[in-house]
């Protein structure tokens, strides 16, 4: 019984907007890291910029939703350009250092009590019409499922949560299509060329700096889109955008297979399913008395994720959808 419940919970988690948002953020990171070879350790920063750019535009500035979405995208593009100008001409590891720092700067800034009046500080931004602060009402009005309970096979949803799941996964599908169209084009090939050898690309007349900047902006804007999806069904909470989010996204990209079209989606689904299942397993171990019932036992699941990632890198470095042959050429 416990096993079936755990599997059902995993299934529900897969359909949730959080899984979709992580898939989308991972699609953006895959453009950076998988295709272009840019080591962006601050994808959570782009997600945060998207989430705050969107929510603040609606709640604080009172702008219409579509303008708020454009502002979120614009802010992420600007963030990418600001990060890119000083770092893209340098070696790859500098970008890693700067992005991880910049993402933390974003998080500490919105988290700071200094801007409490605007960002809500550590409380974040409430998304509840009855409290006079909400940003998803406009999209909610198109909800065709109503507010009631909806049973979908063994799963029970509220109408609202089903609506958010549908919206977010459709957007993931559309962005995947967009990325596929881009990556089959000669432009997509220049990204992979830059990943392989920038000097060679420059010798062939390619503007390496511009290519890297375009990739950084595109992946960053997709990350911002993920940020909007992530906060739509919930509130904005600054703690979510910590470095762990970035590393979970890297886990997702590597799990699914870097530089593959469906890798980030598959990676996100598996990542969250494993997380839910391992949580259930830990709870069960506590119940039968094998593990001590300490308060943070469920946190042990992230240790299991780390172990799974280490095993993956050793035994299947190309990820699930990646090409083994490609990996065999990586310098050992």
């Amino acid at each position, binding site marked *: 019984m416990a096993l079936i419940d755990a599997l059902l919970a995993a299934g529900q988690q897969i359909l949730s907007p959080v899984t979709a948002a992580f898939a989308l953020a991972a699609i953006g990171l895959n453009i950076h890291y998988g295709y272009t070879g840019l080591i962006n350790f601050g994808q959570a920063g782009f997600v945060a910029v998207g989430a705050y750019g969107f929510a603040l535009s609606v709640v604080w500035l009172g702008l219409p939703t579509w303008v708020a979405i454009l502002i979120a995208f614009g802010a992420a593009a600007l963030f990418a350009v600001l990060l890119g100008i000083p770092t893209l001409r340098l070696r790859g590891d500098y970008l890693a250092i700067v992005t991880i720092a910049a993402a933390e700067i974003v998080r500490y800034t919105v988290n700071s009590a200094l801007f409490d009046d605007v960002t809500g500080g550590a409380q974040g931004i409430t998304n509840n019409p009855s409290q006079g602060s909400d940003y998803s009402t406009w999209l909610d009005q198109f909800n065709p499922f109503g507010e009631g309970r909806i049973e979908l096979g063994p799963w029970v949803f509220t109408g609202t949560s089903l609506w958010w799941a549908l919206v977010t996964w459709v957007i993931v599908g559309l962005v995947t299509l*967009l990325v596929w*169209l*881009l990556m*089959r*084009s*000669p*432009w*997509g*090939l*220049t990204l*992979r*060329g830059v*990943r*392989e*050898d920038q*000097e*060679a*690309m*420059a*010798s*062939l*007349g*390619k*503007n*390496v700096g511009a290519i890297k900047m*375009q990739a950084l902006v595109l992946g960053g804007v997709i990350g911002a889109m993920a940020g909007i999806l992530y906060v739509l069904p919930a509130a904005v909470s600054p703690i979510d955008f910590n470095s762990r989010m970035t590393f979970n996204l890297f886990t997702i990209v590597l799990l699914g297979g870097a530089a593959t079209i469906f890798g980030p989606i598959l990676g996100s689904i598996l990542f969250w399913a494993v997380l839910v299942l391992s949580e259930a397993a830990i709870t069960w171990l506590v119940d039968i008395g094998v593990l001590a019932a300490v308060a943070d036992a469920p946190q042990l699941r992230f240790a299991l994720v780390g172990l799974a990632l280490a095993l993956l890198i050793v035994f299947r470095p190309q990820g699930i959808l990646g090409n083994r*042959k*490609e990996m065999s*050429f990586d310098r050992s």
Partner: protein
Amino acid sequence: MTAVRHAEDPILVAEGVHRHFGGVTAVDVERIEVPRGQITALIGPNGAGKTTLFNCLTGFDAADAGTWTFDGRAMAGLVRHKVARAGMVRTFQLTRVLGKLTVMENMLLGAAQPGEKFSRALVKPWWKAARESEIQHAEELLVRFKLDAKRDDYAASLSGGQRKLLEMARALMARPRLLMLDEPMAGVNPALVQSLLDHIAELPSQGVSVVFVEHDMHVVKTIADWVVVMAEGKVVAEGEPGPTLANPAVIDAYLGAHHDVDLRAIIREREGSAS
């Protein structure tokens, strides 16, 4: 020192090119000319500044001083990808293939295609025709360079010599008017050298001028129409290969007194004097 003879119709003229690293002067070239429609060999001992000069002229390194014109156009200070687009395309001493791309993908990146613009990438009809004509061009080049069987293999799976061939074929995809080859024969199996030489020798007839760095004097004598000798950052002689290479000063100082003697003969001579 030989009197410096200039080429008749240079495609590339550089003057006062200077590059130093700390206190070391790597390049101090008063004037160098590369004749149009010919094959020019750039020779000189290790550390003569040949590669540094290549890097400066192609924008891969910033010269401290100097001006140069390519086909009448001032090129000093131009960023490297613009140098390549202007028609000066270089290869590298240590081959740089794009390993995890196929041979064909490597070739296609040599060409400038409309679909490489982000604004054009989404809609296939906007770039399909141009890409197909580049694929056709690439296939012809791959046949010429005997790489057609490797078309869909990863470039990383090629041998060292095949990589040299691919790099040269890829550079030709960029439609160069001046191809600058940095030691194209280095590390290439002797059986392939002849085929590489044949390819280089064909280029002037296709409107491509060539300048290449080389250490093997037999190679230089075989295909070069013009020779420029560098030493300690300076051009010390230039002219047609016969007289230039025969110049005793060039031979003694920069090529070594035994350059055309069989190595075994030298060893025998030494063993003879030792016993």
